[in-house]
């Protein structure tokens, strides 16, 4: 706990003061899926091999978070795709790489040329079907109307997915089903479907011996893998930047797919997969990864961090929430503003709240604790407010008539009388906190959200459960713990029924 508090302080100071170390220092980020982890780890390895101190903040949630972290300087580089840059980051669907480079430069960001492969949507056919019908391109498939497709719901819904593809190729199929990706792959493997949408670096392509059909009419937007980085790296860490750029043009689709397969299907560590990718891409002089900060699925570590996050944010929420509740009960107009304000915070989606905080607080434990603290405020403020405003008038007047000072009245009479309601608010806040703290993983703060995010990325139900089950159990423990705490903290006289005469 103390360590975490110190880390918070330290992180704030670091963010504010910058780094004074003479050695080059590079922080590489990656998104929450295996390919991004492997590329991030490979970049961090290259930077470290150039003599820089490098760090890999893996498994950050979503493009918004990573892009915001890069702009804010919380990370220095991360692997990205040109299609995502166009659609999500720049909102310029038709921009060329040169135009994107110019736009990013305005934010102080640079983008490399393609790493050598693209990771876009593709249509894949079951191997035997492709063999039988001589399918090489999507145009070939368009001549076989008897083909049955199993597509993900997202692919069916996106304009750059099925609807556009169908129009471009005049593709009419006997059967088009929507299915979860793994089920669609199972259907193709089992022969109950012939076509499936895949990513070009999908490890399942090789495992299931699917044939990726050539997009001969150039329908699918290109998602060339690139590295986005801060331009100030050129001055701050030129050696590390040059080292990372060694990867440009060196990784092909098959290498990437093998690395993905190693992580997703063979349960290799991100570090080992990155090492293999570097050897395949760069040959003999490829550096080997050192100690890795790539995602680890150690549940105990995650659980401990989870508890730390909840405890720290809850403590802060109590320290501010109870006084705010008291203020709200004293000054009703201010109270309406306070309760309204804390209520509004609840409605801000966690991803948006985190993205908003990154420019101020960077990534890691600090923004996670602040977000959890903000989400935890309302129940505590509300509980305190309700507890104080529902004290029977006769008791409030008795306290007043005794001539106690306002402080003594609050401490000796009002807060004890309100304690059941305050404690109920704190309990609600704690239980919500245990559930919400899984979002901390989105900004690289760890916790039980880490195995959950990784499990989703790896489509591994056991991994998801290894985060979700402890989180649920922890919520129960917190619930039970508060029942005991209530016995200890709520004055016994308040738990008695009035004596019947």
């Amino acid at each position, binding site marked *: 706990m103390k360590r975490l508090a110190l880390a918070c302080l330290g992180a704030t100071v670091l963010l504010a003061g910058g780094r004074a170390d003479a050695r080059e220092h590079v922080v590489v980020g990656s998104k929450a899926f295996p390919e991004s982890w492997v590329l991030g780890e490979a970049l961090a390895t290259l930077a470290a091999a150039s003599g820089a101190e490098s760090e890999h903040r893996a498994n950050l949630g979503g493009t918004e978070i990573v892009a915001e972290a890069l702009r804010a300087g919380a990370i220095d580089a991360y692997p990205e795709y040109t299609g995502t840059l166009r659609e999500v980051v720049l909102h310029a669907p038709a921009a060329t790489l040169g135009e994107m480079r110019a736009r990013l430069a305005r934010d102080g960001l640079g983008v490399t040329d393609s790493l050598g492969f693209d990771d876009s949507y593709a249509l894949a056919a079951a191997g035997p079907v492709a063999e039988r019908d001589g399918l090489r391109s999507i145009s070939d498939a368009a001549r076989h109307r008897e083909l049955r497709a199993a597509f993900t719901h997202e692919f069916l819904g996106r304009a750059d997915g099925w609807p556009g593809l169908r129009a471009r190729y005049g593709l009419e199929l006997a059967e088009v089903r929507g299915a979860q990706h793994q089920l669609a792959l199972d259907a193709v493997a089992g022969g109950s479907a012939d076509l499936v949408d895949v990513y070009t670096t999908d490890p399942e392509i090789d495992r299931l011996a699917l044939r990726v059909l050539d997009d001969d009419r150039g329908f699918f937007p290109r998602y060339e893998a690139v590295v986005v980085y801060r331009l100030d790296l050129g001055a701050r860490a030129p050696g590390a930047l040059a080292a990372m750029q060694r990867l440009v043009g060196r990784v092909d689709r098959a290498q990437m797919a093998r690395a993905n397969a190693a992580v997703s299907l063979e349960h290799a560590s991100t570090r080992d997969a990155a090492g293999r990718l570097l050897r395949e891409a760069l040959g003999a002089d490829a550096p080997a990864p050192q100690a890795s900060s790539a995602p680890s699925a150690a549940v105990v570590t995650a659980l401990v961090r989870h508890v730390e996050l909840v405890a720290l944010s809850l403590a802060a929420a109590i320290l501010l929430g109870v006084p705010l509740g008291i203020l709200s009960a004293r000054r009703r107009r201010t109270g309406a503003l306070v309760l309204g304000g804390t209520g509004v915070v609840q409605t801000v989606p966690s991803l948006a709240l985190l993205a908003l905080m990154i420019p101020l607080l960077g990534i890691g434990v600090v923004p996670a604790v602040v977000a959890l603290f903000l989400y935890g405020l309302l129940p505590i403020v509300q509980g305190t407010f309700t507890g104080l405003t529902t004290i029977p008038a006769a008791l409030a007047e008795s306290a007043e008539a005794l*001539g*106690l000072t306002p402080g*003594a009245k609050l401490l000796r*009479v009002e807060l004890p*009388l309100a304690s059941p309601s305050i404690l109920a608010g704190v309990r609600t806040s704690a239980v919500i906190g245990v559930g919400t703290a899984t979002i901390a993983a989105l900004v690289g703060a760890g916790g039980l959200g880490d195995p959950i995010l990784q499990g989703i990325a790896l489509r591994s139900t056991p991994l998801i459960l290894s985060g979700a089950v402890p989180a649920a159990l922890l919520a129960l423990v917190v619930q039970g713990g508060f029942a005991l705490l209530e016995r200890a903290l709520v004055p016994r*006289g308040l738990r*008695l029924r009035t004596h019947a005469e």
Partner: protein
Amino acid sequence: MITLDGVEKSYDGRRVFGPVSLEVADGARVAVVGPSGCGKSTLLRMVVGLVRPDAGRVLVAGEPLTDANKRALRRRIGYVVQDGGLFPHLTAERNVTLVARHLGWSEERMRARVAELSAMAGLDGPALARWPAQLSGGQRQRVGVMRALMLDPAVLLLDEPLGALDPVIRRKLQRELSALFRSLGKTVLLVTHDVAEAAYLADDAVVMRAGRVVQRGTIEAMTRAPADEQVSELLASRAP
């Protein structure tokens, strides 16, 4: 000791109380009687500063109640409400010693005072350690009186102190309170709807109706010469 001088109170522009002028001399025991809603509780609450008058002055021991002196003044006033107004989170003893503890009395001094008061109020030792919810109505009322007397105030205000009790206990407590008042010699202002109780506990009574004082005197004298028909009816309600 207690002076009300042309005191008025309005709600939503409608005057509901006063103008009332009233003197209660040092050591006098005065009961305020009248039907419910006549303003008798408001009168008491004005004396202790829970209701602020719109016009007129309220003086206790010659001092007006201001924001600056209200806490000091209130500690010289004991205020007892129906059912004791005890804090459910404190034991009977802690209720009694609440303010003394806040004022920094030593444990020894508090213990001695509580022993004195419990003998006076007829409350046995074990009851002192109980929570209000574990006490009988009569015990709660005794604790309420002890709490009001803890700092040895010059003035005792009681608002329907026996209102929640059954008749047998009520009569017993009336006897005890009467003896207590006589032995303490404090200024007592008592609100009750029960004329018999007023006659028993006070030397002097004030009849109120619709926010105003209608008549003042001993119950006997007012019964003999009521100010009007309604006072006569009210006083006639006195149980034989």
